[in-house]
């Protein structure tokens, strides 16, 4: 076949021989699988010790009670035998029986007199005498999903996402008077900021991926999230540019793309903050909130960078700020009330893909400008300055 004996006309014809040839490998595959499943194919496939895995989904603490939701991440069913908390075998109940089918979850309930601010180590023994350890680094009552906590997480999202982005937008009138070189610098600065944010988001995604069940293939999930988001946004942009009437509306489209990219990044950020706050891993001190505001103010700057030479109108600016900042609120809600490690990985991957697609768009815009007048040092210093800005402001947060 490889010798090019097939002509285009032959290729279109279908007959039984071809159908059989097409289906044959699948049939043989089925037979091979059958042979393996029934005989083991001459290999000793029985493992000497059972392979089990149990991962934590979420932990809820209420006065006198600890609830930990765990997922069976192993290849077989897993049965919980005993639960030990801080070196004491403790009576427990489960939400759906002690046996957890593959990839399913169960919630372990302990009536345990925990104390505020202390650390707890929970060990779950399976019936195969395999211990799984989970940790409550700092015990405090898990916020309930009531109006008050919704409001407080909304405020967190507002402070770390919405307010900084809008603050950045306020620069718009002042920056409109910049010359071409300064504009390019600003675009490069934005690109630098986004490269840094993208790395940050990706690192967070990879870190989270290690905590999710192996069967969910965290790294693969990141790949799917990043690549599909990148390509999807690229396709949308191309379509918009194709239908755009002028260069002005093209640039406005780009501003919207940047807002979406930053918004998706902020969704991931909100998610991480909500989840971390929930398990007491971070205390949102005033200093930390200030740090977030300073860092995220640059995001607002990035959104308006492509449209500085235009007059997009206050309505567009308001929408741009909302798209860029508000997902932080949504993210903190999800992170606080329904944290799912797997979902978090996917969101973070989407954020990464979106941010890098925007970098790609900005690069195209810069190239358009530098085509008329080469200014390599402006681009270099802009990108490096953007990355450094985030690194330095990051010192306040991390």
């Amino acid at each position: 076949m490889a010798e090019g004996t097939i002509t285009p006309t032959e290729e279109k014809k279908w007959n039984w021989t071809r159908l059989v040839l097409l289906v044959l490998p699948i049939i043989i595959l089925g037979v091979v699988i059958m042979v393996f499943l029934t005989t083991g194919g001459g290999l000793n496939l029985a493992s000497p010790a059972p392979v089990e895995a149990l991962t934590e989904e979420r932990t809820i603490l209420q006065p006198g009670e600890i609830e930990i939701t765990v997922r069976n991440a192993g290849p077989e069913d897993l049965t919980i035998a005993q639960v030990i908390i801080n070196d004491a075998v403790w009576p427990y109940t489960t939400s759906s029986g002690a046996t957890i089918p593959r990839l399913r979850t169960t919630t372990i309930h302990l009536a345990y007199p925990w104390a505020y601010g202390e650390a707890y180590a929970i060990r779950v023994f399976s019936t195969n005498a395999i211990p799984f350890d989970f940790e409550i680094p700092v015990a405090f009552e898990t916020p309930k999903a009531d109006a008050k906590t919704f409001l407080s997480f909304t405020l967190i999202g507002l402070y770390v996402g919405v307010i900084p982005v809008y603050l950045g937008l306020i620069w718009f009138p002042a920056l409109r008077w910049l010359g071409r070189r300064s504009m390019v610098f600003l675009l490069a600065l934005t690109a630098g900021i986004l490269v840094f944010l993208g790395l940050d988001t990706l690192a967070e995604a990879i870190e989270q991926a290690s905590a999710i069940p192996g069967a969910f293939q965290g790294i693969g999930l990141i790949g799917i999230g990043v690549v599909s988001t990148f390509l999807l946004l690229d396709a949308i942009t191309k379509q918009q540019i194709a239908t755009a009437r002028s260069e002005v509306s093209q640039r406005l489209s780009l501003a919207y793309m940047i807002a979406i990219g930053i918004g998706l990044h902020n969704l991931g950020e909100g998610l991480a903050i909500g989840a971390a706050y929930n398990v007491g891993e971070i205390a949102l001190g005033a200093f930390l909130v200030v740090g977030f505001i300073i860092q995220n103010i640059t995001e607002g700057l990035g959104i308006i960078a492509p449209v500085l030479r235009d007059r997009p109108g206050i309505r567009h600016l308001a929408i741009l700020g909302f798209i860029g900042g508000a997902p932080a609120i949504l993210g903190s809600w999800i992170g606080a009330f329904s944290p799912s490690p797997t979902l978090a990985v996917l969101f973070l991957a989407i954020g990464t893909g979106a941010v890098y697609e925007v970098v790609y768009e900005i690069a195209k815009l810069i190239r358009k400008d530098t085509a008329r007048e080469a200014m390599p040092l402006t681009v270099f210093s802009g990108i490096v300055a953007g990355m450094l800005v985030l690194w330095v402001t990051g010192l306040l947060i991390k």
Partner: protein
Amino acid sequence: MKQNLSRRDFLRAGALTLLGTAGVATITKVAGQAKASPLHQMGHGEDAMAMAVGEVDHQRNGFNPSEILTDFDYGMVSTLENGQTLREYVITAINKDIEVVPGIVFPAWVYNGRLPGPTIRCKEGDRIRIRFLNGSAHPHSMHFHGIHTAEMDGVPGTPGMIDPGESFTYEFDAEPFGLHLYHCHAAPLARHIAKGLYGAFIIDPNGGRPAVDQEFVMVMSGLDVDFDDENDFYAVNGIPFHYQLHPIQIGVGEKVRIYLVNILEFDLINSFHLHANFFNYYPTGTSLTPAEYTDNIMQTQAQRGILEFSYKYPGLYMFHAHNTEFAELGWTGFFEVVA
């Protein structure tokens, strides 16, 4: 007995709740009843207390710690030509899967299928003849604490170290009187002990000890179920929490004697604390005069001693290791003192 009933209900309801079959309402109700009972000690606030969920299958295990408590093996008795009493025993070492904690099966190595092995009991000066069969997949031995010849010591390099499928007869005179123990001395020693090859060895003095109403044997040990050379659970007589689930019954004023042996591997010491009471303690049982009047003693591995006490008031009284970590990982029990 009404009080007794409420206590039983409390324990049973506890076990059921652990199994996830009883609702919150049940336990609140029963805990309420229990509080009204003078037998109930833990009625402060919630009845939160360390405990395993469910109960092991004693039938399938082939032994029950409640029976091991009073199971003294005097052997097959005859008299030698010189007038000496001969006690003959047959002890087999086997590999055996034992459900040590509900749901967790431990691939143990045991003497005569039980954990701990049989309590060998004899009198000072008796001739002891033990036919030892190794039905296990590994070399094993019986190393007795006592006075005997080097050939009978059951350590590597002596005829008493037995390969799988082989057998040997240990023979010696029982001395000195006291509470001793035996265990496998094959290498690696820590693993062979941790896997369950141990038992108590009691030599009564000539003329016996003063009469008591009840005698119990308690062998303290640990269970390393995941083989990381750290104990995951602790127990007396093999099964963690057994006497918490099934309190040991004694009567008010009854004289009680406990033969307490520590064979705990991996941890440095073990201890025994008796609630709301004091006991006379006879270290190694080699004297008839108590060395101490206390409510808490400590033993390192292979240390042992005899405790004597009686309860003045009826009620449910805890006894446990005062290494509280061990206590909450299974080494806790109750005496139920009835009027």
